[in-house]
């Protein structure tokens, strides 16, 4: 029995890791979408987190916990810088700024010789694994569910539905926007650090525009009615290429098609139900 389970784990190791990491990424984009904003920088924040954590582990031999903490803080600081203007402006501007940010981080990693340049960073020590990944995912799921059930969740939903009305009712829009962006980038950074420490290799081209869109498609497929929805979306989209092997080459096309169909015909995702509120 245990042997069979062990075999299963070794065969599907990367898939098991991938589902958990992508679940965290789905939650990170959910946090921004939940206040009615669109960030296409999740992949960039993930990359910054991955490089921060991996560089610390490889070059300085820091304990895993320190790498993890740093991989949350550095992307959060970056989000503060990029997100500053969004205190005044929203929507399209944030989307554009974050697309630009993604391109720039790729160029930086590509040209930064200390971080391996185009070759990327290899032989990152294997840390964390399944317990760390799924532990983080569980903590975030519970935490975000509690937030969604509280007064804060009500304010977030109000912002998403009608920003002007929410503002009139006294929701501090700029603060919510900025906090959402910073929290979400920290989460994406942690996801990057976790995935770097299980795959033991990272490269500059893993965190480009396509990765950003893939992350967005998790939340669009699942919906953003509750934190569970985007995680379900990411699980389906991570498993899909494995289940439909012949489809694997067209993964990006399928992701694109899913986004188009989801927005046009299923605007609330496959888990449309909203969370019950207590506060």
């Amino acid at each position, binding site marked *: 029995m245990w042997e069979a389970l062990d075999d299963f784990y070794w065969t599907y190791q990367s898939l098991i890791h991938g589902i958990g990491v992508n679940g965290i990424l789905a939650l990170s984009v959910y946090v921004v979408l939940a206040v*009615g904003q*669109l960030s*296409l920088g999740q992949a960039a924040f993930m990359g910054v987190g991955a490089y921060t954590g991996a560089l610390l582990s490889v070059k300085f031999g820091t304990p895993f916990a320190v790498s993890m903490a740093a991989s949350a803080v550095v992307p959060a600081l970056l989000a503060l810088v*990029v997100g*500053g*203007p969004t205190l*005044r*402006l*929203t*929507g*399209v*501007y944030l*989307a*554009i*700024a974050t*697309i*630009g*940010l993604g*391109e*720039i981080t790729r*160029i930086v990693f590509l*040209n930064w010789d200390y971080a391996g340049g185009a070759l990327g960073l290899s032989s990152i020590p294997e840390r964390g694994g399944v317990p760390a990944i799924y532990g983080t995912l569980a903590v975030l799921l519970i935490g975000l569910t509690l937030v969604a059930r509280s007064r804060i969740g009500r304010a977030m939903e109000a912002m998403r539905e009608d*920003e002007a009305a929410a503002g009139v009712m006294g929701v501090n829009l700029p603060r919510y926007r900025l906090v959402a962006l910073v929290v979400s980038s920290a989460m994406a950074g942690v996801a990057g650090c976790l995935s770097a420490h299980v795959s033991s290799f990272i490269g500059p081209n893993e965190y480009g*525009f*396509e990765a950003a*869109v893939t992350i*967005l*498609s998790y939340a*669009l497929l699942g919906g953003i009615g509750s934190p569970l929805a985007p995680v379900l979306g990411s699980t389906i989209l991570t498993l899909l290429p494995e289940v439909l092997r012949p489809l694997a*080459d*067209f993964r*990006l*096309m399928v*992701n*694109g*098609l*899913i*986004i*188009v169909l*989801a*927005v*046009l015909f299923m*605007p609330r995702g496959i888990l449309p139900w909203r969370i019950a509120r207590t506060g």
Partner: protein
Amino acid sequence: MLEQQLVNGVVLGATYALFAIGFTLMFGVMGVINLTYGVYFALGAFAALWSTQWAGLPIWAALPVGALIAGLVAVLLDTLLLTRLRKAKAPELASLMVTLGATLFLYAGMAAALGTEIRRFPAEVFSGGAYSLGDVRVGTTQILILAAAIVLMLALLALVRGSRIGLAIRAVAENPDAAALMGINGALMLRVVSFLSGAIGGAAGVLVGLNFNAIQPFMGEHMMLRGFAVIIVGGLGDLRGALLAGLLLGLAEVLTAAYLSSTLKDMIAFALLVATLWFRPLGLFGRAAAKRA
């Protein structure tokens, strides 16, 4: 060598400005950041390439062919993707995400169908040669690019600013409902704008393909970052702003590459973008009433 760099910068900037003018027209009238715009860029370049390769057309004839095909695809995509959302008066974010999904689909599809290797215009398309003005050498390709960009831009500006169709387009941009009450066919105008901006994007693709002599499916993706920078710096939806900001970006990139480093060159667009968002969010020509959301 400064003069030479200035010439190169103006030529590059003209293509950026042309690219951004179609992009910003689309945004200004429809209120939607249409990310499929980068696709028209590559489509125009490929259509022109094929018409030189298979039909043996000279480049001055291949340029309109590329523009025409990109324009038609733009109308088709706009109808497929955005009509439904427009009817439902869906928020801007939904439109942005639909075009995002479509872009991903189209890029992956084009890469699968066309291959990702870099293609070039046949050598006989270039009539080679260069003119010298003192120390400055100006290639015939550069002259062609600059001339085509200026003619296309003037034609578009004349159309939007000085014709009845342009008046109708501006009316739709200002207030679609009021325009409809005045007897303007809004759906038709949106199709005209889609065609125009798609065609401009396609033409820009042909010219950039000529300038770098490299055509591949993802060439628009690289360009979109510059497009964003140019329309934000110029002011969303403003044609004059796009023109000026395009030239500014072209010059800044060429000068940075020449005197600082080519790595920094790729970051100029983003630096301009963030600086504008920080210090003058409405852009060079932005009006206080510019729509935001």
